[in-house]
């Protein structure tokens, strides 16, 4: 768990942060503080949060709280850590060559990767696109298997 980033445990908090972040990308990480991969991701997020602070806000969401389960279901979060991007309360999708475009699953290899991803999202959002292409080469994108309806 990062002490630099705000951790949200309630739906209301998530709602307010989504609604109040205007003209900035909102990065919501869904995960557990004790998970190893989540910790890795949190580390990168914390270090780069200041660099992207002009066009992005970062927040962490603890998926273990009951209040947040609604969002876990709504966003179809099955693997952690999952990062969801918002812009002006609209969800931004990113096509990174994986099965799931609605979120980023896994951690980032480098700080720069994260910054590139957020920048791509911001540029697309400012142009009015709801889905953007991932600027990272495929080797740096974490791979995973997505289950379809628990199959």
């Amino acid at each position, binding site marked *: 768990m990062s002490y630099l980033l705000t951790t949200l445990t309630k*739906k*209301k908090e998530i*709602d*307010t942060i*989504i*609604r*109040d972040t*205007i*003209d900035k990308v909102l990065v919501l990480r869904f995960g557990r503080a004790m998970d190893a991969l989540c910790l890795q991701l949190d580390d990168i997020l914390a270090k780069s949060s200041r660099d992207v602070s002009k066009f992005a806000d970062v927040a962490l969401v603890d998926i273990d709280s009951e209040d947040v389960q*609604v969002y876990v*279901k*709504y*966003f*179809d979060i099955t693997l952690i850590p999952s990062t969801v991007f*918002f*812009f*002006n*309360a*609209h*969800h*931004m*999708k990113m096509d990174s060559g994986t*099965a*799931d*475009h*609605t979120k980023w699953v896994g951690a980032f290899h480098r700080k720069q990767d994260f910054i590139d991803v957020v920048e791509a999202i911001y540029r*697309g*959002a*400012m*142009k*009015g*696109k*709801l889905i953007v292409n991932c600027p990272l080469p495929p080797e740096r994108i974490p791979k995973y298997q*997505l289950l*379809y*309806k628990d199959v």
Partner: protein
Amino acid sequence: MIKRCILPRLYGVKYETLFFRMFLKILPGKIKSSVKPNPNPNNELTPPINQKSMKKKNKKQKSEFDFCKVCNRNHDEGQRHKYFPSHTNSLSKFFSRFQNKLTEVRFFLKNPSFLRLELASRNRLWCIFCDCDIDELGSSFACQNAINHLASGDHLKNLKHFLWKYGGGMDRVDAFRISQADIAKWETKCKSLKSEAAPCGGTSQGFPSGLSNDIHKELDYENLNNYEKNTLHHLNSNISNVVMPLQQHTNEYQVSRLEHSGVANVGSNMHVITSTLSVDPCDGTSLWNANNLMESDSYSSLMVSVVFLYLLAYGNGAVNDSNCSGDVSHNKKGKCKMTCLSHCFILMIVFWNLYMDNTLSLGSVIPICVAIVATAGLQNITQISSFLLREAGGNVHSGAPPPWFEETQGDQLNVQLNQVSTLNKSGKLKLNPKRVGAAWAEKRKMEMEMEKRGGIVKSDCDPNWLPNFGRVWQSGSRKESRKEFEFEKQKQPNVHSLSEMPMEIKPYVSKRMVAQYLVPEI
């Protein structure tokens, strides 16, 4: 008839088309004659020159130029013109316009009412069939002349001729005239009206002659009484698109008479008020404006003027009373407010009472209100300007420097820098309006500003709010995905209840085993 040659497709399409084109070139006249509906099939072998002359002859059969009243243009199409679509369109429009005017006439045919002489000059009808103007001068009933005209034989004759010439359809004759039966009914109704009105009149003179000859006071009085009856009757019977005769006189002469008679009681109060309000030389103009406004006497305008008066009184404060002009002390200001307000209240109450007692007509209340308002408004302006003049040390006319030049140069530079920075900021602030969620952002910004300023704690988003999210396996729009989610949410409790039921675990029994069990029994 020249038939099209069906060439074998040996050389492809191009050859065929080329050949066909050449074919066309060689015999243009014959091909053309086969394509067009040939009025003279026997002429197919004649040389083209004759055909051209035939066409010329057809064209030569022009008719003289004629003017079409409906299309409002000259044409040389003769009898054919009335069948052209443009003409039929114009005709339908023409007829509909006339019908609109006729509906009013028909209304008065069914419900005859007396015609006031002042309004008579306004009622004119142009009969499109007879090309004549029908006015209502000298008619005692509304649209009397028009009704008589529409029922006359001349009009019918003209109407038939018009329909024959311009092709409206002869079945439409009855739509544009009044039958003998209708006019007979109308006449009986008029007679009954006259007989009703006669005993209430008071004068020995008969109504028709009275109405036509004099426009003096007796007539007005009678009309007033009759109008009260008739208008009530009409109010009960008819509803919409009726021009109701005015309840009150709007003639300036009449209104001024009423004013003099009814306003005398208010005179004393008026004097009090005018003394408190300083008299402006523009009073004359304000009253003139008021007279113009008399035309619109309605309840709403009275209320508006009353409200305006009230607001003005409340807002005037220190500037209405001559005692507190230029004086800054609060006590006097308060007093002035109170006195002015109280005066206006008294005035309003007085007017209202008088109006309710019917001694004061609407027409006179409004000009008085407006006059007060106008004078008060004018006063406001003068007072403020004088106040400012006294305060300012100098102005443009006295040649004093403007206040911003009094600062040092450093301040000037700062000002410039600020201007530059604001310009930059404003440039950046022009975010792309097409960006994602632009509308939401604008809306939210407004909300947040409101919250900051007004301290209005707007109700936080309801607990069921969800952001715009496109689900992983969605196929339709994002709204659909949300609907799906809501649906699933509703389903959940059912799912939970089902899962709570204890599941019986049974060993798997295959068909073979069943068969094995069954066989020995058999």
